[in-house]
């Protein structure tokens, strides 16, 4: 279980900003999101989308603690 956050265009695409999602690894979270919303699943796997777990960027596969905050960050537009 993790708190998933979406930003920018991902939020508009999904129609939500923040949700609890089941999963104990990043791969499980991605699979769960993909199953519920294929367009979102594809978008969060897209080029330039970074992932932050508990506000730290991660690369590749990681495990997710029960209270983790997992953010999908589309390409940033700068300030």
């Amino acid at each position, binding site marked *: 279980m993790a708190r998933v*956050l979406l*930003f*920018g*265009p991902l*939020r*508009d695409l999904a129609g939500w900003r923040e949700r609890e999602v089941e999963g104990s690894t990043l791969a499980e979270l991605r699979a769960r999101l993909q199953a519920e919303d294929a367009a979102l699943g594809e978008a969060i796997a897209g080029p330039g989308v970074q992932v*932050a777990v508990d*506000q730290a960027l991660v690369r590749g596969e990681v495990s997710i603690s029960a209270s983790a905050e997992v*953010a999908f*960050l*589309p*390409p*940033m*537009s*700068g*300030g």
Partner: protein
Amino acid sequence: MIGLTEAAFDPGALLSEFSLARQEVGAIASFTGLARAEAGQTQVLELEAYPGFTEARIAKIAEQARERFGLADLIVLHRVGKIGPGEPIVFVATASRHRRQAFEACDFLMDYLKSRAPFWKKEHGPDGARWIEPRAQDHADVARWEQEKKS
């Protein structure tokens, strides 16, 4: 001081406070970014940040500027949420002994903020809304500092 704010702010009020009671700071550079109306094409600009993460990233950029240019002090205030035409989006000020460092640090901070800071920007115009990405110019601007560092 590094911060995000949903409220409109006056860059002059920030500069007044920043420039007070300085004894050994000869130079203060500042930059204010304003939302352009684009002749009615942009009615509202909407900026989204990732609270906590965004400030931490900006703090890292600020730390780099502080060390690289030997700054005495700096301030970065960034607006988030909906911003009307003519309203300030970002204010950066840098204080140093001499003006070259203050100018360069301010320029450096803006280049990094414009291309590397975690913000997502949406323009609301007469034909609807669209998410925007950094301009090619923003990438070119930030690359200047990385080349300089290597050489």
